[in-house]
């Protein structure tokens, strides 16, 4: 058993710096590379891709990435844990296997496949048995949007990842798995932590929470002394250096930019936090009010003292459903009276939409440069404002109404207030809204499946 392992985060979200995982592998020692690909509505996009092409439905970027890093991972025994499988985990694993063979690594590594999260086909049977899958935010039963569901997945925890690693997998690919489980799994596998060692499981979970947003704990988006954070162009992604006793150090590779400090780690700890005493995952309930931080040298923060509680008997389910359409149009007004002109243009636009008899569930006007982010807290903009962007969004179920709205923006240039520009992009795009429906399901209903294949 190892006493210490280094788990590196390679992506804070699907679309993060493409070279970050490569640099994590190449610029210093690591044992594991953890990659989080699944945002809340990613599964529905993948579901659509799979409907068009049965071979699709996983994070395609993962395959060329593996092509770049797999030889080094095999050579240095770096394991990769990624929820890149989306709604076609087996397809993703097959693509990685093909890449491994292409690289001459056939027979040299095993690939773990974790499934069982996809419950789209079982939704009706749940509803028929009185499992209502009520929305955790609004308490509405799922039946109200049943005919519009596009994907449904339970969040799996660390356990199946551990099983795949125990069976010798070098690359573990999951579908919907918690971001924290991707970090906790390797710790349980290496240190042999018991399934009811709640304090250690909570520690691994909180380590996962700290590194799951990539550089957001190592200097990115950091408010504390942001102007002095060095070399963000070369920002180092975080590494959790975990010990068997459940303590860990957050750090990054030497020679990289950014900064790991107590304030940078604190900012990430409180990110997307609910009740800090009850951070619920499939693996445990972590208590963020027990986290202790200490300086451990340059770009090193030691984390200890973490306490946890027993896991609950439910799993979170993420369901995506079609929820109408939206479009956002923008124009830029210049000095003088930029704000007044933008407001006048908004009034004209709304009068025209009214005359057309268009109805929307929501219409929102913002003035970017004046108050789009802080609203009334920003106060009145200065009278000599150099420019302001008028930004109008509409949402509704009638696609034609949204489409019609998009034709009313550009004409404002020739038919509204003067000194206006910013319409190079053409008409605004009508977007189909895929909304997120969080729910809970009894754990007994979900069985994770683990398969390990030879490359």
């Amino acid at each position, binding site marked *: 058993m190892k006493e210490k392992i280094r788990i590196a985060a390679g992506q804070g979200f699907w679309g993060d710096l493409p070279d970050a995982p490569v640099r994590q592998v190449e610029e210093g020692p690591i044992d594991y590379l953890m990659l989080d690909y699944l945002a*809340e*509505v990613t599964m529905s996009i993948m579901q659509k891709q799979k409907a068009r092409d049965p071979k699709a439905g996983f994070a395609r970027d993962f395959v060329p990435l593996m092509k770049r890093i797999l030889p080094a991972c095999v050579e240095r025994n770096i394991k990769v844990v990624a929820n890149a499988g989306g709604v076609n985990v087996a397809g993703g694993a097959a693509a990685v296997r093909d890449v491994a063979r292409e690289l001459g690594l056939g027979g040299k590594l095993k690939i773990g496949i974790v499934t069982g999260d996809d419950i789209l086909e079982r939704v009706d049977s749940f509803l028929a048995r009185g499992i209502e899958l009520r929305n955790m*935010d609004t308490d509405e039963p799922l039946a109200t949007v049943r005919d519009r569901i596009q994907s449904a997945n339970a969040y799996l925890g660390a356990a199946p990842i551990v099983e795949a690693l125990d069976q010798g997998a070098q690359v573990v690919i999951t579908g919907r798995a918690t971001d924290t489980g991707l970090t906790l799994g390797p710790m349980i596998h290496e240190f042999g932590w018991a399934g009811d060692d709640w304090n250690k499981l909570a520690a691994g979970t909180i380590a996962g929470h700290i590194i799951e947003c990539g550089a957001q704990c190592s200097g990115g*988006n950091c*408010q*504390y002394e942001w102007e002095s954070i060095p070399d963000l162009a070369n920002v180092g992604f975080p590494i959790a250096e975990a010990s068997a006793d459940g303590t860990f150090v957050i750090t990054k590779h030497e020679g990289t930019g950014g900064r790991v400090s107590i*304030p940078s780690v*604190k*900012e*990430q*700890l*409180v*990110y*997307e*936090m*609910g*009740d*800090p*005493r009850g951070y619920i995952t499939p693996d445990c309930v972590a208590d*963020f*009010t*027990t*986290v*202790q*931080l200490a300086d451990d040298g340059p770009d090193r923060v030691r984390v200890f*003292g973490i306490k946890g509680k027993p896991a609950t008997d439910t799993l979170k389910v993420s369901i995506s459903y079609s*929820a109408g359409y*939206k479009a*956002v149009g923008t124009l830029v007004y210049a000095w003088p009276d930029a704000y007044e002109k933008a407001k006048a243009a908004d009034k004209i636009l709304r009068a025209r939409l009214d005359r057309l008899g268009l109805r929307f569930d*929501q*219409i*929102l006007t*913002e003035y*970017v440069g004046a108050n*789009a*982010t*802080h*609203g*009334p*807290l920003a106060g009145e903009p200065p009278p000599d404002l150099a420019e302001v962007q008028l*930004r109008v*969004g*509409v*949402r509704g179920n009638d696609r034609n109404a949204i489409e019609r709205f998009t034709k009313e923006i550009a004409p404002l240039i020739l038919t509204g207030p003067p000194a206006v520009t910013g319409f190079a992009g053409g008409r605004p795009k009508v977007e189909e*809204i*895929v*909304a*997120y429906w*969080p729910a809970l399901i009894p754990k007994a209903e979900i069985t994770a499946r683990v398969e390990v294949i030879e490359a």
Partner: protein
Amino acid sequence: MQIQLIKLAHARSGDKGDTANVGLIALRDEFYPLIVREVTAARVKEHFKGICQGKVERFELPNLGALNFLLHESLGGGGTLSLMTDAQGKTFSTALLRMEIEIPDDEAQKLGLR
């Protein structure tokens, strides 16, 4: 004296559906009791008038010198439903740091704030 929160704390915010979370962290440990006393859920609700349509919950993390606020019904429906520029509530952090709080002069002096 009046002092703006940005002199006392840093912050990070994010979203969960239509709820924005703002973590407010004392710049120095000795500012924490002052922040706990002054930055109540009611004050934050009042501060975000016109933005937060629901209730405000507050949680204490004395170990981090931090408070966590949940601002319900603040993100225009949240996620992909929202039409807002800041649908994820990322800038609620500095919006909270705009808050002005009142401190007795002697306390301000003790904390080295004047």
